[in-house]
């Protein structure tokens, strides 16, 4: 049975925790809005890029002139997993869900006898994968210095991936990140970026276009840029998801702290009352004994 003083201290500390989680929730809410706006603003570019790509790739995919970024190396033995997580914790299941998905895929690939390499973006994913798969790491991108995610960040990551592809380090690259669905729902997603996935559908419209210089030259120029755009989109989605996840997690934590305070307060009042009753009984029985 904790003493009254202990209970009082305990209540005080839980109240402080609640203040912190509440503040974190509000900060996350503000950041979420900004992250969502950024993701929204980046959409037109990505959409246009995707639609032009769809037209070009549909035409080029069949021909043997197709660039390697599109056609692949003709092999799928070596895989690169790009695991994108956050730099900070306290975001609920945000990082673990990504890592879990990546780990699942990794085991699947290894079971098939494929060779796997890991590139991590963000500290948290690296920490979670390090013990088991530390020897598979090829590169780590530190995002802790980055205040606002810009296209430049995405391009550096994409350049690195493209370099490795150019050097023949892998055949297939897949991005792992959390797709932002809503504040309460973020979906861990695996997205193959190399070789480019050809989207079906809009192929017919592309035949109308004149290409200058020619289709292959544009495609060669466009494919690396498309990789960067997809990395950028994933970074932004991830940033929004992180804040969303943190907001929900901190909301839960705040509510839990509130419940705990209620429970502790009840206990505190009970023990206080018990102490008073005990004292009264002692006085009364003392008086009666006389």
């Amino acid at each position, binding site marked *: 049975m904790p003493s009254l003083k202990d209970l009082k201290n305990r209540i005080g500390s839980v109240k402080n925790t609640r203040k912190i989680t509440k503040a974190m929730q509000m900060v996350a809410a503000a950041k979420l809005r900004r992250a969502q706006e950024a993701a929204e603003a980046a959409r037109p570019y990505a959409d246009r890029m995707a639609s032009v790509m769809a037209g070009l790739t549909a035409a080029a995919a069949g021909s043997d002139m197709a660039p390697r970024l599109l056609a692949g190396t003709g092999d799928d033995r070596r895989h690169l997993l790009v695991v994108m997580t956050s730099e900070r914790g306290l975001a609920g299941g945000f990082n673990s869900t990504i890592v879990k998905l990546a780990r699942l895929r990794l085991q699947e690939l290894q079971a098939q006898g494929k060779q796997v390499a890991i590139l991590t973006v963000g500290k948290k994913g690296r920490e979670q994968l390090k013990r088991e798969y530390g020897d598979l790491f090829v590169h780590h991108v530190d995002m802790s210095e980055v205040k606002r995610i810009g*296209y430049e960040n995405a391009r550096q990551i994409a350049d690195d991936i493209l370099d490795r592809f150019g050097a023949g380090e892998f055949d297939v690259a897949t991005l792992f990140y959390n797709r932002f669905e809503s504040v309460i729902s973020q979906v861990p997603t695996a997205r193959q970026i190399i070789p480019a996935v050809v989207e079906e559908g809009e192929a017919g419209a592309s035949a109308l276009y004149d290409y200058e210089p020619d289709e292959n030259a544009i495609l060669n120029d466009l494919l690396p840029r498309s990789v960067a755009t997809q990395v950028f989109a994933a970074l932004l989605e991830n940033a929004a998801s992180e804040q969303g996840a943190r907001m929900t997690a901190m909301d839960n934590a705040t509510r839990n702290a509130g419940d705990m305070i209620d429970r502790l307060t009840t206990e505190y009042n009970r023990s206080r009352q018990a102490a008073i009753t005990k004292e009264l009984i002692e006085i009364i029985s003392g008086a009666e004994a006389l």
Partner: protein
Amino acid sequence: MADTMQFDLVSPERNLLSVPVREVRLPGAEGDLTAMPGHAPAIVNLRPGLVTVVAGDGSETEFAVTGGFAEINGESVTLLAERGHPRAEMTQEVFNEMMAQARRRVETARERDTAGEELVAAGVKLLADMEALGTHIGLDPNQANFPH
């Protein structure tokens, strides 16, 4: 046929401009070209340079763009550029930074033994185009200090 068309200038981070225009002059990779309403559908690679936008009332606005392509059809022109700045915002500092970035790309391309000659050549060409752009709008490409 309408005498204006929709022009969108889009960067990866946001929409920079969306206006009706009478014509757009673009720095194509293989030479400048002008797009007017009714232009045949085309997709054109761009070199770093100035894009001139002529509004319905004849007023001209210029933008400096790098790394992009334009999608042209009869009713609209969409320009996707990695970077785009209104000419008025193209100060020496902005330009210096862009030059530094372009130079860094060439350097990294050279350093990496894996990168083919192509990549270096592409970087050098980019740099040359950037220099031409700078000289064209009266900025000094040599002011950009690049730390080695």
